[in-house]
């Protein structure tokens, strides 16, 4: 009888060890480190990416940004405003407008330069907003950096152990055609839910989070 108990406990011990062999269980760990460029939207094991509150032993497993196709709206607006300028400035020089408000020619040149500078500023601002709106998954937690505009930012952190459910939302033609979508993470208690909006390959991201959740539930402190 004591032998049976010994045998059982050794089986449990064996299971516990295999559940901790994290590098093999967490699929993303088998991938090669990825260099992050200006237009990178999905980077497993991103090289040299850190954040303010990162712990020394913490490892960034995945960096995600919104899919590049989500930039189409502001690119089209920029194109429209650029083409619109070819009609705007001749109108400002016309007699019809001069009767209302006279702007000297030298100032019209300055105004046109100013218009194109604002346009360039709009492009820079939109790009920077897209560039810094990132999601990071480390072996310990999830970091969500949100920008509505460059003037308002929201940085949220949650431990992997607090995540109770992961959901993928892919709606419409574009989401399916370009394989991007939103990954929602429900957290315990009163903490707000996390979401990575319009990220590429949401299934892989959800898979990584699920792997980490499973790993942490089985007692692994880090991957």
């Amino acid at each position, binding site marked *: 009888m004591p032998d049976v108990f010994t045998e059982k406990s050794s089986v449990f011990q064996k299971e516990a060890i295999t559940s901790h062999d994290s590098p093999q269980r967490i699929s993303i760990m088998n991938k090669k480190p990825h*260099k*992050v*460029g*200006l237009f990178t939207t999905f980077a497993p094991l*991103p*090289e*040299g*990416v*850190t*954040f*303010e509150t990162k712990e020394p032993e913490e490892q960034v497993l995945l960096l995600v940004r919104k899919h590049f196709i989500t930039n189409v709206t502001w690119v089209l607006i920029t194109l429209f405003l650029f083409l619109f300028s070819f009609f705007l400035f001749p109108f400002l020089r016309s007699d019809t407008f001069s*009767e*209302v*408000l*006279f*702007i*000297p020619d*030298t*100032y019209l040149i*300055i*105004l046109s*330069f*100013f218009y194109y*500078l*604002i346009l*360039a*500023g709009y492009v*820079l*601002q939109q*790009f*920077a907003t897209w*560039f*810094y709106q*990132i999601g990071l998954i480390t072996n310990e937690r999830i970091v969500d*950096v949100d*920008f509505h505009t*460059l*003037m308002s*930012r929201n*940085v949220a952190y949650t431990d992997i152990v607090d995540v109770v459910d992961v959901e993928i939302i892919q709606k419409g033609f574009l989401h399916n055609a370009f394989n991007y979508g939103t990954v929602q993470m429900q957290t315990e208690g009163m903490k707000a839910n996390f979401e990575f909006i319009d990220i590429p390959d949401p299934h892989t991201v959800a898979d990584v989070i699920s792997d980490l959740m499973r790993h942490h539930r089985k007692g692994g402190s880090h991957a």
Partner: protein
Amino acid sequence: MLETLLPSELLALIGKYGILILILLYGIFCIIILLQIRGIAKLITFNANPLSGIILAAFTIHLLLVSMLFLLGIAIL
């Protein structure tokens, strides 16, 4: 219509100063954005390649151009 209410010289002045004030306001907005981006760049660091540096440099050049345009506007006033 406005010309009947205001003399043409005044309209020309409104046109000139209006543009200068717009450039000035935009310059202030650019400075705020630049400071905001500097704050964000401290939050997330991309050590591998100086990506934040590229964006900051682009904004700084943009701000310089706006300042130059403002000075040009003052010079020809």
